């Protein structure tokens, strides 16, 4: 246990250090984000000092780390909020999107993969594979804009960019920050359905990506399991093919699959900058990118810590699930 915590700590420190160094080598002047292009030299110098940028590098890093351990991530230059507050706002937006996308991706991807595996080499297999590959091969911003054009503009099935219709924006005070949950807490079904109609398109587009990956991995794990001896045993017992696939084979497929799903979930939780831009979705990816492009390093570091924590958290969760699903891994 101590070992795990220690190695987590090292990973975190490493993450911070790398981020910090990136911040320093970026040829972007962080002061510019704070004072703008037209500021006078005096103001510029004063702000630079205020930001602690004239200290030696190691001192800056040390200060930053010690602040973090006191729970202080500093203030973002761009939003002038404490970074922690910003993250509390942007992360739920990403979390909501990523979770829904993963739910869609998993609930369609696994059956698709299984379906392809049991029909290996026949047309259902080819269809699943081509559709899956397509999901992996299209630029997401193109797909996003096309999705908007077709489903929002032309067909009117879904709502446009944003998490809610604009004039609903003020009506909701974030409790959890998850729009779907908050609207339910408020008990306003109109708002809830509005939120659903906004999230469904970006979530589906992200889901398409994870679906493609999950389906492909499910297929190949499934093929591997179906050639195992215990499947033959099950057949010998006279068990229905249905049960063999969904209980026996899938039960074993879930074990490696859980890691695949976790990784794909973790990568969605990092936030997809491009999707967030297209769908005006104020999420983590956009936040970090914007901060990075303005050398708003407190925000970038804070965001990276969150992403790192999410990554590590999801990995640990998948380890736990792995143990639950695979009795061999239990101790």
């Amino acid at each position, binding site marked *: 246990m101590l070992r795990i915590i220690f190695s987590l700590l090292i990973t975190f420190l490493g993450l911070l250090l790398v981020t910090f160094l990136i911040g320093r080598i970026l040829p972007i002047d962080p002061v510019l984000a704070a004072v703008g292009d037209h500021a006078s030299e005096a103001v510029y110098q004063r702000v630079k000092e205020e930001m602690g940028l004239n200290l030696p590098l190691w001192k800056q890093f040390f200060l930053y780390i010690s602040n973090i351990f006191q729970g202080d991530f500093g203030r973002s230059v761009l939003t002038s909020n404490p970074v922690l507050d910003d993250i509390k706002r942007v992360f739920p937006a990403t979390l909501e999107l990523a979770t829904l996308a993963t739910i869609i991706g998993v609930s369609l991807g696994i059956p698709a993969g299984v379906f392809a595996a049991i029909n290996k080499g026949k047309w259902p297999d080819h269809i699943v594979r081509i559709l899956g590959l397509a999901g992996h091969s299209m630029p997401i911003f193109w797909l996003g804009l096309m999705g908007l054009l077709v489903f929002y503009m032309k067909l009117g099935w879904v709502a446009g960019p944003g998490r809610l219709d604009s004039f609903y924006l003020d009506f909701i005070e974030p409790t959890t920050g998850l729009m779907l949950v908050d609207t339910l807490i408020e008990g306003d079904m109109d708002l809830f359905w509005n939120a659903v109609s906004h999230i469904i398109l970006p979530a589906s587009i992200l889901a398409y990506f994870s679906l493609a990956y999950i389906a492909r991995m499910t297929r190949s794990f499934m093929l591997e399991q179906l050639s*195992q*001896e*215990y499947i*033959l*045993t*099950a*057949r*010998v*017992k*006279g*068990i*229905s*093919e249905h*049960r063999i696939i969904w*209980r*026996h084979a899938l*039960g*074993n497929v879930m*074990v490696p699959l859980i890691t695949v799903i976790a990784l794909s979930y973790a990568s969605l939780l990092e936030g997809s900058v491009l999707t967030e831009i297209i769908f005006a979705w104020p999420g983590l990816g956009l936040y970090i990118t914007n901060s990075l492009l303005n050398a708003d390093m407190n925000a970038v570091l804070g965001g990276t810590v969150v992403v790192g924590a999410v990554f590590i958290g999801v990995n640990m969760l998948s380890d736990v699930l792995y143990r639950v*699903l*695979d*009795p*061999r891994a239990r101790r």
Partner: protein
Amino acid sequence: MSNEPLLSVKNLAITFSTPKGPVNAVRGVSFDLGRERLGIVGESGSGKSQTGRAILGLTAPNGKITADQMQFHDLDLRNLTPRAWRKVRGARISMIMQDPKYSLNPVMTIGDQIIEAYREHHKVNAKEAKRRAIEMLESVKIRDPERVFNAYPHEVSGGMGQRVMIAMMLIPDPEILIADEPTSALDVTVQLQVMAILDDLVRERGMALVFISHDLQLVSSFCDRVLVMYQGLVVEEIRASELDQAKHPYTKGLLNCLPKMDGNHAELPVLTREASWAEA
């Protein structure tokens, strides 16, 4: 006992299509099976397992089966629907696999796997099924059936696993049991213990047993009758007790090349194969 055949196979042939061309794994095998212990021996790749699997309709998809006859009671095994096969498998013909380590589902408890076999063919409630399963585990001489029932396959030893396998395959009470090298992954002593259990069960239930092995000595000491296979052909069929009078040079050669425990370090006679053996 063996006068009325349960299963009659005539001229069974199995051909696999592979990238390198067709492989004739089994070429015209015929035999009748009564309520007896029939051994099939032969070296690796001679088609023993494929013969056994064909009886259960479990040949791999790239394999093609032809036979003049494959009669099990009133069922023609050559053209059963998947649904009909499921009624036969487990309930009427069953099979024990070689290696319990790979043949049991690693993520299901042993109990669940046994119950599943039983309930597939018997409409009983879960409690009754569990009672039967525990009973069955006891009858394969497992000392702590409750514990084993709740255990996962990796938590039991190889010998134990093979007993579980036997319990699982016998619980629906089949008429024919095919055992494909059921003990070759086990230690010698455990091997014999498992065979003793099998022996008892066959005697008690009046089952027909097909015992597949490459160990001539073991088969001859255990079975009633032996089929000797070579390159997909049955080259000799012989009563087990008369094995020392085998006529076919292949059978004789196999017997001869076993090392003996006589303290003699001399060269072992080796098998010189003749092309004519492989001609149908």
